[in-house]
């Protein structure tokens, strides 16, 4: 099998459009899913039963069912309740929900790893639970949270390919179309494989930079 380079030239721009859609969807899903993951993690620790149980149920459902089924359920069931959203929005919501369940568990693990005396001393000095979380506990959890959080982001990016099944015009969908029109699967899929890889590398490198910036203390004297 020889590589047909004209495919790259002719269809590259379309693939790049799909790539752009993938980036938009992923960025939106993470910007929604990450804060919601923090909310879920805090709700999970709440003394209010309703809150902690709802959070637990949400997390368990989204972690223990296949993402493709979640997408189908949201896409085909929401219209029954009169909520007809464009496929892209359903995709963002589904990815955000799926991501938040995993983010929540990672964040909760990080919070639990901070010694209880840290929270106690913050509360004893008059901080509210939220202030104690924000100023004392979460900053100390970051070093524990960031590496697994990065992994979850990478898998979220890869899962976004599933959205092609509900006609979202993202990168995988575009490659499928190109493949259908050209009958050249190798060229079509190698292009997007490289682009997924590129996107994941960029995210991984950015997250490692954040990790260094947020979790390394300056050497004494520099402070």
């Amino acid at each position: 099998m020889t590589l047909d380079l004209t495919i790259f030239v002719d269809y590259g721009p379309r693939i790049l459009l799909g790539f752009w859609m993938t980036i938009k969807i992923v960025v939106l899903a993470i910007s929604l899913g990450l804060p919601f993951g923090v909310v879920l993690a805090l709700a999970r620790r709440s003394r209010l039963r309703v809150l902690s149980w709802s959070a637990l149920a949400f997390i368990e459902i989204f972690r223990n069912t296949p993402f493709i089924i979640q997408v189908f359920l949201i896409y085909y069931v929401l219209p029954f309740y009169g909520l007809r959203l464009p496929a892209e929005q359903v995709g963002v919501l589904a990815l955000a929900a799926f991501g938040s369940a995993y983010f929540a568990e990672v964040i909760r693990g990080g919070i639990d790893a901070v010694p209880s005396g840290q929270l106690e001393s913050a509360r004893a000095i008059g901080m509210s639970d939220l202030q104690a979380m924000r100023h004392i506990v979460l900053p100390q959890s970051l070093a524990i949270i960031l590496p697994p959080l990065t992994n979850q982001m990478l898998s979220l990016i890869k899962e976004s390919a599933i959205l092609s099944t509900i006609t979202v015009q993202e990168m995988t969908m575009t490659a499928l179309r190109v493949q259908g029109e050209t009958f050249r699967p190798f060229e079509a899929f190698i292009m997007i494989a490289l682009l997924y890889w590129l996107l994941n590398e960029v995210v991984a490198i950015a997250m490692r930079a954040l990790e260094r910036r947020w979790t390394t203390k300056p050497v004494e004297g520099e402070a």
Partner: protein
Amino acid sequence: MADKYLELIGITTRFGDVEALQGVSLSVARGEVVCLIGPSGCGKSTLLRAANWLTPPNEGTVRLDGSVVGHAPQGRATAAQIRALNGHRARIGMVFQQFNVWPHLTALENVVRAQMVVLRRDKSEAEAKARQALADVGLSDKMDAWPERLSGGQKQRLAIARTLAMDPVLMLMDEPTSALDPELVAEVLAVLQRLAEIQMTMLIVTHELGFAMRVADRIVFMEAGGIVEQGPPQELLSNPRTDRLKAFLDKLSLTTLPKDREHAEI
């Protein structure tokens, strides 16, 4: 002393089947230093943690200067009650056995943060206050140090500075020197002694009888979830009225008293 500044009334705390405190009542007057002594597991920490409602009791009331810090049993706290409690806690300093300094903040930031977050002081005011508090505990040269670089004694003095900067009206201390290497105990006790001299109201759990003898206005002996005996240090320690206190002092003097004599020099 008649004046009741801190009042713990009928405090009962249960952990499952264990009744850690059985209706304990204790008052501390303004400016008074009270040392709590007693065998391990008798409920000293639980009583201290009831005073700022960190471990809410099952029954009982805590009042500070006449206003209610906490009252149990009580349903879910309202937002207003939580705010009021946090307001009380801001004025009640607590010092822990394990220091609990905040490792992600420098010494100065440790002292600044709660002032800004809780008391809403602006940065320059909080920093000025923090520098003063750090100077008061002898840490002026450690402002920019990270806690992990500090010795145990320095960490505990940092923790004390952190509460002093909040202008506390009462300090609760739970075995502030128990986690320290013996040679570092004196520097912390010296700070506490200075606080006693400036009439800081303090409730201190300690095994340092020599220290208690020097600074306490009153020693309270607890056992098995209740107060057994209390009185002025000299009287209580030289003439224990109960066999239980006698037995406790006998056991303690074997281990603690010689060490305390050294500290008596400062």
